[in-house]
């Protein structure tokens, strides 16, 4: 099937696509483990404090970070090449979607395995948190799997959708999107400062249950994927 070619295109750069993210993650994990070992010498209290604090550790973004770029690169570099080689937009979209889902599945599995190990071994015996953090879900392992999978899929499709929108509408899209985000931010800050109880309500809104949050991420992912699929069929090679 010709759509498979899209996957072949990405596997040309195995190291860039998979090697480096995993190596960087291993490096980050090593640093966190070293921190854990140092703090560990300062007594049980310090260790417990660290365990609590590391719930918000963003070290896992060493792995999730490259995913954001991946979505952009798909439309910026691989789309023109795929069309240049005579693939249709439809074939590209199918291959690219399969690749996004496959990537999300693989990385979600990796993180879930890491988290399960981490929890089972008490933070690798050092009371650290790397996989078992807020962003990947601190609940059960299956929850981490669902959460990271949804998060990665949504990120990938969002990146692709944004790049497609840029290719389709050009510079005005960036200005418009940026302005909207800016206005939204200013409105929120203004609301918190000027309107009594606005901040509290906002906080309540954000402290949804896990399930609802997953719903929100899934909706963002679906909307992005839908937008991207719609745009990519009309996108021209620059």
């Amino acid at each position, binding site marked *: 099937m010709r759509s498979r070619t899209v996957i072949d*295109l990405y596997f040309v750069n195995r190291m*860039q696509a998979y090697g480096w993210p995993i190596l960087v993650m291993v490096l980050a994990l090593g640093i966190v483990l070293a921190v854990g070992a140092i703090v560990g010498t300062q007594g049980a209290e310090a260790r417990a404090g660290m365990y609590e604090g590391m719930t918000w550790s963003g070290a896992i973004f060493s792995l999730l970070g490259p995913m954001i770029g991946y979505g952009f690169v798909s439309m910026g570099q691989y789309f023109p090449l795929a069309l240049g080689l*005579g693939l249709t937009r439809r074939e590209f979209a199918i291959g690219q979607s399969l690749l996004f889902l496959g990537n999300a599945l693989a990385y979600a599995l990796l993180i879930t395995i890491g988290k399960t190990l981490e929890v089972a071994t008490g933070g690798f015996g050092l009371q650290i948190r790397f996989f078992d953090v807020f962003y990947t879900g601190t609940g059960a392992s299956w929850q981490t799997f669902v959460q990271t999978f949804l998060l990665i899929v949504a990120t990938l499709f969002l990146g692709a959708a944004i790049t497609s929108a840029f290719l389709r509408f050009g510079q005005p899209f960036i200005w418009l999107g940026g302005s909207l985000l800016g206005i939204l931010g200013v409105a929120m800050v203004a609301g918190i400062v000027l309107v009594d109880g606005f901040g509290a309500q906002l906080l309540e809104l954000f402290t949804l249950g896990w399930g609802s949050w997953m719903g929100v991420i899934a909706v963002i992912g679906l909307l992005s994927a839908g937008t991207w699929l719609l745009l990519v069929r009309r996108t021209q090679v620059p």
Partner: protein
Amino acid sequence: MNALETRELSKHYRDVAAIDDVSISLEENRVHGLLGRNGAGKTTLMKLLTAQIFATSGSMRVLGEDPVENAGVLSQTCFIQESQKYPDGFRPLDVMRISQGLYPAWDQELARDLVADFRLPEKRAIRKLSRGQLSAVGIIIGLASRAPLTFFDEPYLGLDAVARRLFFDRLLADYAEHPRTIVLSTHHIDEVSNLLEHVVLLDEGKVMLDEEADALQSAAIEVSGRLTEVDEFTTTAEVLHTARIGALATATIVADGEQTAAAARAAGLDVAPVSLQNYIVHRTTAAAPAAAR
């Protein structure tokens, strides 16, 4: 049968017409030249025909069908783009392997031969290749794909004289053995003029010439002699270009078959042929002041 045809095809970018009302037919299994100055719309036309971009209006048929989102047509079409970009880390080897899977008629042996002929470092990152080596990558894919319809957009960029001759000879040899439709877009008109059977000349998005190469070869002649005699002879002719030195003059005029040359000789003037390249240069420069008026 026609390999491709367009009817009143146009492509506008805001208020600029990159392709303006183009209606052409290219017969299959011939070598066609798509010529014109930079910005004349050659690349845009090829991008339209390979469905990289969408037309603003008009219609087109490529290998008998609409090429847009048509895998059947696009797998039979190979477009070697001068500006094709490759992601980081791509090597010629990778592109050839992937092309092999995409083009049904791919000839791996030919690809191997060409890599050796062009001395292409196939394991070096494409980003680190010279402009000429990058052109060689395109040429190798374009020839080895053996696609029934192959577009070469400026295949000569950065190639040295040896590589240019190599491309010409390998294209000619492979085309003779495996006839297919080839569209050559290049500024090196003299180098390919003996290969072209049919020429389409674009100027500012419009078709300026659409002719058999045979007809173009004798479409104009250069007459020279004494200024007065040249002037007298060319009063009724369509003059494309004139030059004078002292009492002598040279004029490039549109010829009406063999008679014009014979008449010029009878009038005591020297007659010389006008190469396709010079003819096209004169036609495009003659058009510029006409359009400005």
